[in-house]
């Protein structure tokens, strides 16, 4: 970086789109500023008071002018809205089958786990040229995962999952910041994204401190240890619904509603099982709220997700 940079690195597929939008808005700002400043300055000079008893001609308004500076800004505003909404949709919708990585924020660190089971703190290794989706939650207060070089940011909220996705286009190290004020060492809750070649990433995953247990395996171990299997069998013969092939599918509830089985639904059904009971089953599952750590919960969730992937 130069000594006086004006832009952060442009290191993701979405970055140039955000920058283009930003550039357009800067242009719009400059044009309007020149218009207004120019008008005000010229009038102030041209119509300066020349004698103290000067009586300017009165003019009470002009409907055509009023309408034009109501309607033209309205159309410009709506056009900008559409441009912004378009980029926003792309920021929100991850492509199919992204690489899944999980992050837990706590005062004041980021705990990251890759699907292979590898863990890291305040660093995030990702492969270049591959969409990555982060599923995040917090153990305590609000945090926010922000990577300026990728132009992505999302709040990290206790009690629920939020996600963000990006596809890195540049090798190197980039800042991670916590962008939601979270207490004393908020400005120390920072880290680095390290973008690697996919092969290097693979080697790193399998390298020195590789985990011998993937997230799915860890999830399965805890699924068994907590006794979930007793009721949630792989066939529909258990006292609880089978969890095979349910992920991302709609399910009918006892109250007649239909919900999609996403990570937040799975999370809630583990911690507060009585909140949403699947049609045809009794509310007999014990409450696990406060008994499972956020990281274990993510492992169990990824195990339950894997039951669908392996079934397909």
């Amino acid at each position, binding site marked *: 970086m130069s*000594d006086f*940079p*004006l832009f*952060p690195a442009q290191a993701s597929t979405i970055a140039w789109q955000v920058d283009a*939008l*930003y550039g357009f*808005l800067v242009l719009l*700002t400059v044009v*309007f*500023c020149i218009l*207004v*400043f120019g008008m*005000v300055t010229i*009038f*102030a000079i041209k*119509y300066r*008071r020349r004698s103290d008893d000067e*009586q*300017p*001609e*009165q*003019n009470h*308004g002009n409907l055509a002018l*009023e309408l034009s*500076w*109501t309607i033209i*800004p*309205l159309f410009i*505003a709506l056009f*900008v*809205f559409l*441009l*912004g*909404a378009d*980029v*926003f949709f792309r*920021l929100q919708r991850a492509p199919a089958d992204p690489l899944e990585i999980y992050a837990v924020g706590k005062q004041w660190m980021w705990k990251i786990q890759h699907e292979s089971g590898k863990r890291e703190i305040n660093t995030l290794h990702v492969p270049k040229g591959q969409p990555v989706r982060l599923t995040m939650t917090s153990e305590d*207060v*609000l945090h*926010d995962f*922000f990577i300026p070089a990728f*132009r*992505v*940011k*999302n709040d990290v*909220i*206790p*009690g629920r999952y*939020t996600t963000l996705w990006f596809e890195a286009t540049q090798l190197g190290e980039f*800042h991670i*910041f916590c962008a*939601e*004020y*979270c*207490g*004393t060492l*908020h*400005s*120390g809750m920072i880290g680095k994204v390290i973008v690697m070649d996919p092969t290097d990433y693979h080697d790193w995953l399998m390298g020195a401190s590789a985990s011998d247990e993937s997230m799915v395996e860890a999830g399965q171990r805890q699924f068994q240890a907590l006794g979930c299997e007793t009721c949630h069998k792989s066939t529909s013969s258990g006292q609880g619904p089978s969890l095979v092939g349910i992920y991302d599918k709609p399910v009918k509830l006892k109250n007649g509603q239909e919900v999609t089985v996403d990570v937040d639904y799975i999370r809630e059904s583990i911690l507060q099982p009585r909140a949403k009971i699947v049609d045809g089953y009794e509310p007999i599952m014990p409450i696990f709220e*406060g008994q499972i750590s956020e990281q274990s919960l993510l492992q169990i969730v990824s195990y339950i997700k894997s039951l669908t992937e392996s079934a397909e």
Partner: protein
Amino acid sequence: MSDAVKANGEPKNYLNDTYGIKSWLLTLDHKRIGIMYLITLTAFFLVGGVFAAFIRLELMTPKGDLFEAETYNKMFTMHGVVMIFFFLIPSIPAVLGNFLIPLQIGARDVAFPKLNLASYYLYALGGMFAIAAILMGGIDTGWTFYTPYSSSYSNSFVSLALVGVFINGFSSILTGVNFMVTIHKMRAPGLTWFRLPLFIWGHYATSLIQVLGTPVVAITLLLVVFERVFNIGIFDPTYGGDPVLFQHMFWFYSHPAVYIMILPGFAVISDVIACFSRKRIFGYSFVAFSSLAIAVLGFLVWGHHMFVSGQSTYASMVFSFITFFVAVPSAVKIFNWSFTLHKGSIKLDSPMLYVMGFIGLFTIGGLTGLFLSTLGTDVHLHDTYFVVAHFHYVMVGGMVMAFLCGLHFWWPKMTGRMYPEGPAKLGVMFVFAGFNLTFLPQFILGYMGMPRRYHAYPEEWQALNIMSTAGATVLGLGFGLTIAYFIWSLFKGEKAPANPFQAKGLEWDIPSPPIAHNFEAIPIVTWEAYPYGPEEAASQSTETATEPAKEDEVV
């Protein structure tokens, strides 16, 4: 009126009518209450300013080396709490609104003078709670008090400060009610709605928001106190609460609150620009209704603070869409003010220089708002210094400039003394230059990704931060100079005539400073607002029929 002239030859006015500390502390005179607000507000402004100075000093170096992280967090929190709740929200309405609304509508006081005094004491009491919280050790939640940090995690004096803001909210509500009733019921005969100065329209729109919005934030903050004290689960998920609910409730008020802070600024600018161009405001009714449009739209856009809060994509789309509509009435105002200058007779005295500064800075503040209402760019810019810069452009570049503009313009009326024009021109230059140097670099820092509320930051951002601190120094000198010559003028300033700027409006037809009950006789208004034209001025002078004063009306 021989009794109106005192022995030493000085005519009686609201300042020398009665003497003694009690005559001030128990006064029901809206003008004296306005002055009391001015003194208290200035004290809060200085307290908030000292915190700002410490923030800028810390940020001169990338490492957090001047203060502990916790101290720094407390300073930006208290800067925000003091400046927003105890300076910006009351500023123009409580000082200039109080002083001028009855004068401009030809009334002898506000509708409820005792309530008006009660508002002041609620404000002072709320302020004392906030000061107590600061003196006992401060608060570190950020002025937004986001949960669950504020409700369960912070070990600072959050409840005390929240109770202070809660009490202060009642001051705001009661002032709003008072102004609305005053404007509805106490206008002079003939002063129809469309003959009112735009100052009154702006304050009417502001009062509307104060009355409708403030109860929501009061409830919200009280719920945070309940959660802290009684562990009732409302916002903290460990008790089954929802942290994002707080943000919805908080911004439902706090977004309209930024319009509480800027609409009175618009109100001042409209009056001053007409006077110094000797023209009626271009498109009077468009300017008047754009204030109401902003007040109403302001209640529908709170979710634009929450685009990255996990709010649904479609909710974000709707909030962004509605937010863009706010751009329209703002643009309408800017263009109408600019066109008021067209073919006018423009004199660049210091109040008018503040108008020029306001138009420039508010235009930048408004346009940079587009970056934040645009979904695609807000994701990157949210919670960065870009937001800090945008907010200060609107609040300091807009509201504080407008407040200073109004203070200069009406200073002769309020104090009976002229401020010195030379230092005033120097002051406005310092404020304008210092302000831009402080906050323009922050736009760049924000796009670079510097998050707000950071005690330490990466080294590559130091140059821009040093520029910002240098600018803040110039800005501080500008404010210091302004306060100094205002105080000087009280003792040494030239005696002000009734209408030093040849302005139009009922307040300029009475002496400076006004007598205690404002008008010897209630005027009958037969002319439009801003009668700066020759034919209009003529019609005004022929029809100054008056009603005899009824002493029993004077409270």
